[in-house]
């Protein structure tokens, strides 16, 4: 295994980390409208991710930065090619971060409801857009001999990619509902479980469709294994939440995300962005990567820093391990 192969795996790991973590906080954002019956319940949901959403988002920045450093051509083609979808994601992430931080800083009801609408939409839109983006990467887009994307914005909105977007949306929302049942107490916890069950079934149908399509189109033996793991884990997560085993369910919905992302990366390899115009023009782990010297430095940094990050992020979840209920939301501190 060469360094650029290792970095292909590491980039996949970063995206898995991002979708696993931000997946449930996107889900929580969407659920503020689907699950909460009143303002206090909305706040309960938001506060389950309060201390951690920002740290979760850094996985995206790291994935972006690591792609820049390890595969500059991939970074350049992807981000300039998917310009408008990415712009939409960025705008959402900007507003979303501010919405979390500022929502409670004024007591006026209009101020707060405006930010609540913002939280819902800015969680929902990126959850869809990431699926669309990855669907397109896997499917292959119009890349010319100079590694430039030459397709249009509307080329990105094809049925396969849109199905991918629906899968990430439902999967993240399911993952979020399971997280909510794990982190809350009282009435909302019961409803979170019920919602998770329904969402799980919808996700299962969509995900199965998307993954089978992927497998039929691009798959091989390895991707088939990843697909089977993803599907079994998803079914396991649904069974577990029905049985009231919230911790197990959350772990399994996490495995679903990890295995599904792994499957997409497995179908890509050794490409990183296949060209639909000419196979020769595809970006690969070799023609898109940095020099071995840069990759070696990056590997040292990743090997040392990542375990430390996991350690203290894990510790954060332990510090805030207590479940939250409506009784924990102070009336005065609007």
């Amino acid at each position: 295994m060469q360094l650029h192969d290792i970095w292909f795996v590491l980039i996949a790991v970063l995206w898995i980390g991002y979708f696993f973590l931000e997946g449930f906080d996107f889900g929580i954002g969407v659920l503020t409208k689907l699950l909460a019956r009143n303002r206090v319940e909305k706040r309960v949901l938001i506060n389950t991710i309060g201390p951690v959403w920002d740290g979760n988002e850094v996985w995206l920045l790291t994935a972006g930065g690591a792609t820049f450093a390890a595969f500059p051509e991939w970074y350049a083609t992807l981000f300039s090619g998917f310009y408008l979808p990415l712009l939409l994601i960025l705008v959402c992430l900007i507003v979303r971060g501010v919405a979390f931080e500022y929502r409670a800083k004024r007591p006026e009801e209009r101020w707060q409801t405006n930010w609540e609408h913002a939280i819902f939409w800015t969680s929902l839109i990126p959850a869809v857009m990431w699926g669309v983006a990855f669907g397109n990467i896997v499917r292959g887009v119009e890349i010319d001999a100079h590694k430039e994307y030459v397709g249009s914005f509307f080329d990105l909105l094809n049925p396969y990619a849109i199905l991918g977007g629906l899968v990430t949306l439902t999967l993240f929302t399911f993952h979020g509902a399971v997280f909510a049942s794990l982190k809350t107490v009282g009435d909302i916890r019961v409803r979170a479980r019920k919602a998770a069950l329904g969402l799980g079934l919808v996700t299962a149908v969509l995900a199965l469709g998307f993954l089978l399509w992927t497998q039929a189109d691009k798959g091989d033996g390895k991707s088939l294994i990843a697909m089977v793991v993803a599907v079994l884990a998803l079914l396991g997560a649904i069974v577990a939440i029905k049985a009231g085993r919230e911790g197990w369910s959350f772990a399994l919905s996490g495995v679903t995300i990890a295995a599904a992302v792994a499957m997409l990366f497995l179908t890509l390899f050794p490409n990183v962005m296949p060209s639909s115009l000419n196979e020769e023009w595809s970006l690969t782990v070799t023609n898109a990567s940095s020099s071995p010297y840069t990759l070696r430095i990056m590997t040292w940094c990743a090997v040392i820093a990542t375990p430390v990050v996991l350690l203290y992020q894990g510790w954060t979840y332990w510090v805030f391990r207590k479940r939250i209920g409506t009784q924990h939301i102070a009336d005065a501190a609007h």
Partner: protein
Amino acid sequence: MDLALAPETLARWQFGITTVYHFLFVPLTISLAALTAILETAWVRTGKEHYLRATKFWGKLFLINIAMGVVTGIVQEFQFGMNWSDYSRFVGDVFGAPLAFEALIAFFFESTFIGLWIFGWDKLPKKLHCATIWIVSIGTILSAYFIIAANAFMQHPVGYKIVERDGVKRAELTDFAKVLFQETALVNFFHVISAAILVGGAFMTGIAIVHLRKKRHIRTMRTSLRLGLVTAFVGTLLTVVSADTLGKVMYEQQPMKMSAAEALWESEKPAPFSIFAYGDVSEGHNKVAIEVPGVLSFLAKNNFHAEIPGINDLNKEAREKFGPGDYRPNIPTAYWSYRWMIGFGGVSMALCTAGLWLTRKKFWLAPEHRTGADEIPKLMLTKNRELAPRIGSWWWRLSQWTLIFPLIGTAWGWIFTETGRQPWVVYGVLRTEDAVSPGVSQGEVLTSLIGFTLIYAVLAVIEVRLLLKYVRQGPPELTEADLNPPTKIGGPGSGKGSDSDSDADADRPMAFSY
């Protein structure tokens, strides 16, 4: 196509707007994180309540500010790929690594521990809670270092070689330590951090004065005033030293930028420092110029008689080296941004340095003029002589009104250093016009330029109004819970079966919730 709307021009405007806007939050975040950490440490060590009130007050302003810094920073990470894809392809091998390091080392620190700090008041013992804000502070400083090292490569590329791969040239890293620790990076970092200290000091001073002038929260604000003034003074000293060092380094590395800053058209020996100039760029000379002889020679070379190369000669030299073209940056922009940087910074330097002396507690001060912790400090000129009240009241007012002057100065500083490097994006290696994304259309850039500008404008209004609200509100009253922080990690009700975890404790509202 109309030149004003060329994709390169639009992409540059977008980069300028989003970056200057992002940077408005950066120095304030760097300094307020450290100042909040200092105040919390004072509370942990002394147990004096006004330190905790000050921590909560400044911590709130810090949070309102860092929220904007974080979200506008996301754009920065992606913008190179979106709008400058040819730049990214060309330098990614060198430039990407510090960015990845920044995310992996600094961003995770900041974002994870800021969550612990915000929500941790009733979850962490106070020493541990205090440690989290220190880690945030370290994160902000590390983050600044990595991005400045990356920027230093654009100002003065080192530690790379040009390699041809698949028929395309690109820069490849040969010495990462050189990129990270080259003089340009160290001196730039020194200058940015010094300026950030000044920004925070002037900000804290100004806001403390808002309350002191209204005779509110005197205890807390008096402490804040002194901390602000000391910080601003330290920032002043460091900024002056670092500016001098940086100026000399820049004269070595980018003489064109520095001569543009002085509108020094022809080489002169000795060269004067320009106070005011009005000139004609196309003809290449000044029509009006007010100058101090010899000073520029001294600033650039430590010698009042040294020869300093002029813009016209440097341009000719560059043509011989790089081929035909115009190698001058926009001279009026360079000239005036340089002056605004120094001017805005200088005003606060003077006011805060004066204030540090005038409000001193004991040093060279007759006992009858010393003021207590609950009084507003007198402005004492000498041991027994108070500053005339009319002048004194102007000091109070000006120091309040100029609270964001250094911040404006830092924005001009970046405008100067980035536009002054033009037409290069990587000095002497890659031109800005060759760096832009070829596949991104004019319409797309226009969409994002307008989109970002509008959203940033709306958020600026929201942010400033929120800051004003919390500034006016003043430090919060402390609650029982504030004064009795938890003694174990996780807070009450999170353990299993210990005696103290009564139901009432477990159901206690969170100390902070969104």
